[in-house]
């Protein structure tokens, strides 16, 4: 995720201090991984350098967290461009699991076992996410669903591969 664009987007509704930006980010997007203050300041100084934000005021007491930032017109344009450009789908073609399955077949190990063990591990994650979703608010539900659908896709691949192991074994042996 682009932290710069996200912080910039948070500034669109009005100027904020560094600590306030961090809080807003953590609350909305930082469920698992809250930002470090250091990340906020290095990001803000980069945005400042690039003219995407400007300093709108400094509270007495000093320290970088006392700066109040405001988004510039160039900043708004930048957020707009980021939102409008689609994300590249993740690269799935270098699957570790596929490699493990083929290696197992090549070395006459139990490939079905690998698939079963992986399925159990995936389901464990899915249980945790399902539980979190059940207790959570709408934001939690959407975040967990995103992860759940990806894990589900993996599981469907595991299932399909398990059903094709005999064919794959024959091909690998050639």
């Amino acid at each position: 995720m682009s932290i710069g664009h996200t912080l910039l987007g948070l500034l669109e509704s009005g100027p904020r201090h560094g600590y306030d930006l961090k809080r807003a980010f953590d609350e909305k997007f930082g469920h698992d991984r809250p930002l470090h203050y250091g990340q906020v300041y290095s990001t803000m100084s980069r945005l400042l350098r690039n003219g995407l934000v400007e300093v709108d005021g400094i509270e007495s007491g000093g320290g970088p967290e006392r700066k109040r930032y405001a988004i510039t017109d160039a900043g708004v344009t930048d957020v707009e461009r980021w939102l409008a450009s689609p994300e590249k789908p993740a690269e799935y073609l270098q699957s570790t699991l596929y490699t493990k399955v083929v290696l197992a077949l090549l070395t006459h190990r139990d490939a079905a076992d690998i698939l079963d063990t992986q399925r159990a591990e995936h389901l464990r994650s899915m249980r945790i996410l399902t539980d979190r979703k059940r207790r959570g608010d709408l934001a939690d539900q959407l975040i967990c669903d995103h992860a759940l659908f990806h894990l589900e896709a993996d599981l469907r691949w595991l299932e399909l591969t398990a059903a094709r192991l005999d064919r794959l074994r024959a091909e690998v042996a050639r």
Partner: protein
Amino acid sequence: MTPPPGSLLAAEDLRKAYGPTLALDGAAFSIHPGEIVAVMGPSGSGKSTLLHCLAGIVPPDSGSITYAGRELATMSDVERSALRRGDFGFVFQFGQLVPELTCVENVALPLRLNGTSRKEAERAALGWLERLEVDDLGGKRPGEVSGGQGQRVAVARALVTGPRVLFADEPTGALDSLNGERVMELLTEAARSTDAAVVLVTHEARVAAYSDREIVVRDGRSRDMERAV
């Protein structure tokens, strides 16, 4: 055989053939009181057959099934059907509600069959419809409610007798993902609150994720993932 200690329902080495088809080929299963166990596996692997055997609906060709310490095979037909009416509850994919009866009457039906008065049965039924958030549909007939609503009524009907084991075979199989999810949430919440064990047959991982653990069935053979790792 000796069932795993503390288990409520357990099966060992089940075999069941339909003509030349070996639907179960040495499957095993066990569940503790209040536990939710998913039975996963591809279509045709023997999941439903396993459920039917465990519930005493279909007798296996060989192998043993114990419920609360008793072999199902040694029970009389009368005893087994009493078990299915009292200790067990059932939710299937569809087609389980009586179309001529209202939703309240459908949910009250198992209690009526057990001899409960109409008034009392319908009061209990309404309570269960409320827990599944469909009490407003009480007066409607199954044909007048949506698939998701119908499944919630079916869950209410399965739980109204306070079963110790709820058998659910693809309970969300005919629903879209949002409705399926809600049914699973309500089903598992209701089961947990009454301490009913759930045998949850599903080929969907998202549904299985509501369970405490899973067993995987493939070609009639089962694999208990917890004991395997």
